């Protein structure tokens, strides 16, 4: 039973990812949907940031640490413009803030 459940879930997950491809296999994708696909990255990235920082609504210490660390990422990236430097300093600050808060 457990293996059936796992396989069914795998099927559902794959079908969802493949859905747009299956819909437009034979026919051309309409221009409006194409344009939406091109606009979505910026919107999705903003929603993913909200998703990552969602714990702040409970005012939990991990939520507060993440918001503070995000500010570190924004400031260091504006300053140095180096992806790895900002990820590293943000992550280290987040771990320190978690211990302090």
């Amino acid at each position, binding site marked *: 039973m457990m293996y*059936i*459940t*796992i396989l*069914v*879930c*795998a099927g*559902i*997950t*794959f079908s*969802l*990812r*493949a*859905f*747009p*491809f299956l819909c*437009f296999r034979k026919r051309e*994708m309409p221009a*409006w*949907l194409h*344009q*939406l*696909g*091109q*606009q*979505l*990255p*910026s*919107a*999705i*990235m*903003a*929603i*993913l*940031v*909200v*998703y*990552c*920082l*969602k714990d702040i*609504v*409970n005012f939990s210490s*991990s939520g507060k*640490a*993440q918001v503070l*660390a*995000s500010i570190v*990422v*924004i400031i260091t*990236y*504006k300053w140095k413009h180096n*992806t*790895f430097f*900002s*990820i590293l300093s*943000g*992550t280290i600050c987040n*771990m320190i*803030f*978690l*211990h302090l808060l």
Partner: protein
Amino acid sequence: MKKEILKTAFIKSIPILCSYIFVGMAYGLMMNEAGFYWWHTLLISLVIYTGAFQFLLISFLQTGTPLLTICLSALLINSRQLFYSLTFIDDFNRMGKKKWYMIHTLTDETYAVNCTLPSQNKKDIMPWIAFFSRCYWMIGGLLGSFIGNLVPWNLEGIDFCMTALFIIILMDQCKKIENQKIACIGFIVGILCLLLFGTRQFMLPSLILTSFFLLYRSWREI
């Protein structure tokens, strides 16, 4: 040439490496504690391969939740991936047989990194990023089930690297005025939905509403 591509793919995937190894380890450890074996962890990570839902599935399998409930949850939680596919329809369609593998391996994280690739060798780099990320996720899971108990868990908070990457990608995209407006819509809708629907269920309504607003905006401009 191939070496260059592998190198770029690896460097681009380093934030995913940090995130997947540690989140994967947490997953492997939780699976162990719930009474599952390492091959269960490996099988689920191999065939399902999606973060949030895999964690939820642990408690479902443990408590013997009805299959229909599990299916509905899978449908609701994972339908956000459908929106991710929309961006890469053209790119994946040009990849021949690799297309199905690319569809299967599209996650929040690989989507974000794929959005940052230059268009010239995108087609060659994306499959490697997908492959590396999948390896990280499975290695993380295995490490968790074998040595999860030995790791000092004050490594907590290291998964922030992915949040940092999302913020940086967003900042880069927002150099274009047009993207700033789009990101603003996503941000505001995301926060409103978070307050309305709570932390567990807000992703899907946010994506649907944001898409609706974006479509309305383009329709008005015509």
